[in-house]
């Protein structure tokens, strides 16, 4: 208790007050666009169009409509569908990212075989190649996917473009960054643990899932949250490889609506864009709040280990 009051007294020293002031003040500025988004979310379309927007506009007749639309759908856009697509995609990608990271991480951390280092370093090196390189080739590949979408072997149809497969197909491929993180984390676990389990008759899968997995939970949580956020926020896959409305995700829907926003003199459908932005941002924030401990920890780890 004494220590607490000592700590409390320290907070009022000028140096500490200054730190609080800066961290709080700048923090508020950093949050401002999001606060603005939420307050604007309470406007009806008519009021938004007629209000002269101030620093923090408050609606005179606040409405929950823009938030409810995320669950009830609207006439303008199949928001529920986008929401559902985003969610399914995210869960699917996260599941595979975790599974492949865990298995590959185990192989690289625990098993001894020829060419291990070469394979691992080659995979890691590819992570530095900008992803844009593969965009067009991936488009062509999807369009020429054998025997799909009316293709007779390579040509004739649209392949898997504009189908759910563009979201699903990448799942089982190896999650390289995740494998790297799991490998690092697993190497800290004493090898004797595996040995003991092996003596007790445990097979490889049992060792991975029963012995090692429980000890990798922090890093698995970090992988899960980063993958989930990246997938949730990704607009490229839906934007470039699909065109049907029922396949869009929330960010892709915003992308489509916003092409007008970057050119002067046009009035985009701001209320709808704001609603979709809310729908994209709020779940990400929720995820962040639930997993923030692991994010901070994971970031620190990746940074330190570089």
């Amino acid at each position, binding site marked *: 208790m004494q220590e607490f009051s000592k700590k409390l007294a320290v907070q009022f020293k000028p140096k500490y007050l200054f*730190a609080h002031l800066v961290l709080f003040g700048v923090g508020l500025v950093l949050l401002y666009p999001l606060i603005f988004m939420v307050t604007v979310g309470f406007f009806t379309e008519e009021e938004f169009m007629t209000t002269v927007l101030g620093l923090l506009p408050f609606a005179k007749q606040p409405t929950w409509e823009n938030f409810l639309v995320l669950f009830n759908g609207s006439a303008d856009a199949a928001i529920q569908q986008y929401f559902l697509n985003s969610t399914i995609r995210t869960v699917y990608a996260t599941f595979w990212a975790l599974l*492949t990271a865990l298995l*590959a991480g185990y192989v690289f951390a625990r098993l001894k075989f020829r060419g291990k280092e070469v394979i691992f370093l080659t995979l890691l090196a590819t992570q530095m190649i900008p992803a*844009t390189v593969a965009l067009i080739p991936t488009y062509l590949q999807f369009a020429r996917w054998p025997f799909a979408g009316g293709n007779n072997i390579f040509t004739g149809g649209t392949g898997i473009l504009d189908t759910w497969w563009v979201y699903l197909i990448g799942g089982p491929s190896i999650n390289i960054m995740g494998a790297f993180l799991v490998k690092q984390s697993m190497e800290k676990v004493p090898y004797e643990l595996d040995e003991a389990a092996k003596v007790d008759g445990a097979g490889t899968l049992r060792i991975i899932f029963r012995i090692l997995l429980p000890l990798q939970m922090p890093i698995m949580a970090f992988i899960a949250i980063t993958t989930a956020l990246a997938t949730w926020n990704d607009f490229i896959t839906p934007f470039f490889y699909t065109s049907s409305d029922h396949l869009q995700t929330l960010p892709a829907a915003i992308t489509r609506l916003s092409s007008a926003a*970057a050119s002067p003199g046009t009035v985009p459908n701001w209320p709808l864009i704001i609603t979709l932005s809310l729908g994209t941002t709020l779940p990400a924030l929720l995820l962040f709040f639930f997993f923030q401990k692991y994010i901070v920890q994971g970031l620190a780890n990746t940074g330190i280990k570089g």
Partner: protein
Amino acid sequence: MISNEGKAVEPDGGQLAVTGGLRKFPRKSAVKRRDGLIAAIILTPMILWWLVLSGFPTLFGFVLGFFEWIGISDSPKFVWFDNYVRFFRDPLYYQALWRSIWLGGLVTSITLLAGFGASLLMNMPLFGKGIYRSVWYIPAVTSTVATTQIFNILLDTNNGVINNILISMGKPPIVWQYSVFWGVFWIVVYSVWKGVGGAALIWLAGLQSVDTALYEAADIDGAGRFAKLMHVTLPGLKPIATYIVITNLISAIQIYEQVLFMTNGGPYGQTEVLVFRIYRDAFWDFNLGMAGASSLIMAAIVLTATVFYYRWSTVSDRSITTRRSRKIRKGGL
């Protein structure tokens, strides 16, 4: 360090433990053969699938750089290095590359300096420092598409918040989209807004990994606050500084989403950066050859930066790391 609360962590971050663990592996060849079989069973499907879906398209993208291929329906024509020659002759491309580099440098330096300042403050025993850390990091988890739209509302010409404030102060409103300066300015502001929290967290982890005994020694030697910063903190941060500078630089020269959504390269292509140019070529102009060539050049720059980082970081802590852990460190980007 945050992950090992209360424990001082060696700057090596447990790498030595890694190599120590590896040496304990049984070296019998029968075990090795069995390991090899399990590894093959687990890895082969994942890596094959990865080769099909990522490896092959990436290679194909590089190969495209040697072809002239305009429009997907057109048939490609092999033109050797023509696309690369054009890249360095056509201002559209070399200017975009140059813009990527200085914009990336600008964003990186502001982000890292601001993040460093913030981390020094966050490292003090403040009440609610956990909350500060989270709040500062929040922009990083938001979707670029969504938050750039909020910035666009703030910057709207007719009813934008900033223009409304300018008007209420009796100043004329600004059409941000017509000005190169403001275009770049807001792209930088957005990028710093998004990156500063993450930078602060990594700096903070670095600060907390500096050996506290060194500070005590400095105290005994009568060093002031500034002297401690210069002679203990900064040298202790060197490994993490190289990491954070290079990773930030690599991602900052590849910025394009904020350009795409905030200025769309305008006015008159004056804010086009290279990766944005690749996008334009790929999806609007269908100039697949130039897109391939540009992306190979981008990849070469990123890989060069990585190699520099690798050499730099290995020189800086040769004394404490072993060969194997340096190899692991290389992959840490």
